[in-house]
């Protein structure tokens, strides 16, 4: 099923830094605010800043963003975003961190690399494996980066926009059906 022609969501314009963005800036990590999500502070940070930023946000007593809800990978045809939803067990603030990873080539097999945070945040372990499996972001220094949902030797990353579905005896057109 071709997905390349689907419209990408609109890019939103940059805004002033919020509470967590300022906190990161105080600690020497640059970020830009992009409120794509409704009512939630969303920042974009660079690849190299990701690990220190998350480590800081998790452990610092000011932020206490100690709940990693999910890591999602989104394929925007030209780049892939790794999105971290951070909540807290202690307070009601939320933060969305995005890392934009440009794709090198349009081929299905191209790799996108990012640093793993599974070493200091156990919750990230399976989420990173899943994102690797489905979207194809390769998390470097992950303790056990293996496909988690699809079979271990699966080819391709299904949630890429250019993914070509495997057609064989298990899912070709049903011979019995009228379809």
């Amino acid at each position: 099923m071709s997905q390349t022609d689907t419209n990408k969501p609109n890019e939103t314009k940059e805004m002033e830094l919020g509470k967590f963005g300022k906190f990161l800036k105080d600690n020497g990590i640059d970020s830009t605010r992009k409120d794509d999500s409704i009512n939630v502070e969303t920042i974009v940070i660079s690849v190299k800043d990701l690990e220190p930023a998350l480590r800081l946000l998790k452990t610092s007593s000011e932020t206490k963003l100690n709940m990693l809800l999910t890591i999602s990978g989104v394929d925007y045809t030209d780049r892939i975003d790794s999105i971290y939803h951070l909540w807290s067990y202690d307070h009601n603030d939320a933060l969305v961190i995005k890392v934009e990873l440009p794709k090198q080539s349009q081929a299905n097999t191209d790799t996108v690399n990012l640093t793993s945070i599974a070493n200091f945040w156990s919750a990230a372990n399976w989420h990173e494996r899943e994102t690797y499996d489905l979207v194809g972001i390769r998390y470097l220094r992950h303790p056990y980066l293996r496909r988690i949902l699809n079979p271990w030797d699966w080819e391709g990353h299904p949630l890429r926009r250019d993914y070509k579905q495997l057609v064989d005896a298990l899912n070709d057109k049903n011979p019995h059906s009228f379809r």
Partner: protein
Amino acid sequence: MSELLNNDLNSTDLARENAALISPELADTVTLTSIDKAINMLSQIVSPIANLARSNSVWPLTFGTSCCAIEMMCVGMSAFDISRFGSEVFRATPRQADLIITAGTITRKMASALITLYEQLPEPKYVIAMGACTITGGMFNDSYSVVQGVDRIIPVDVYLPGCPPRPEAILDALLKLQQKIRTENYAKRRVQAYQQRPVCYVDYDCGRPLEDLLAMAMEDTSLALDQK
């Protein structure tokens, strides 16, 4: 009930009946010996008794993957009570079961496990494809990871549509299966089972049919040989 029992006895003549016992290809060429006839007679006498017993004690395997498994559980519970038909003996091990109710989506990763289970069941074995997912893939009929119908990998006796089917519908399917069991020839069934194995093996590690992998490997080797 007696009508059901007599059904297959009257419908087929002796020669064809016996032919199935011998071999389908040689059916016309073989002349029946008295021993064959005796065996046939015996099978016809035994068959109704065996069928009556077998149809009334269909023990399902506890095989369930998703939503349908919950309804399969419910059908054993008080409100529907599959035990009235003698089928509440859900066996955990395939060796002691007669029936697989493929309750829930079968994915490519799960397919090899299902095939193993099917092959571990002792003959005579039956399969009820329960729910849209296992009949055709249902709502996941274009998912990359779902087997579009279990009849692509194992033979299916009764199809039970629904998503998930009501527990009563499972009882309905069970009754239809019992009817099927009653009308078949036990001896013939056993012989046939060994003759035809329409099982499509699936590789666990990459989720593709083994035939394809074999063909690819053959292609590779022939290519390599050609290059030499």
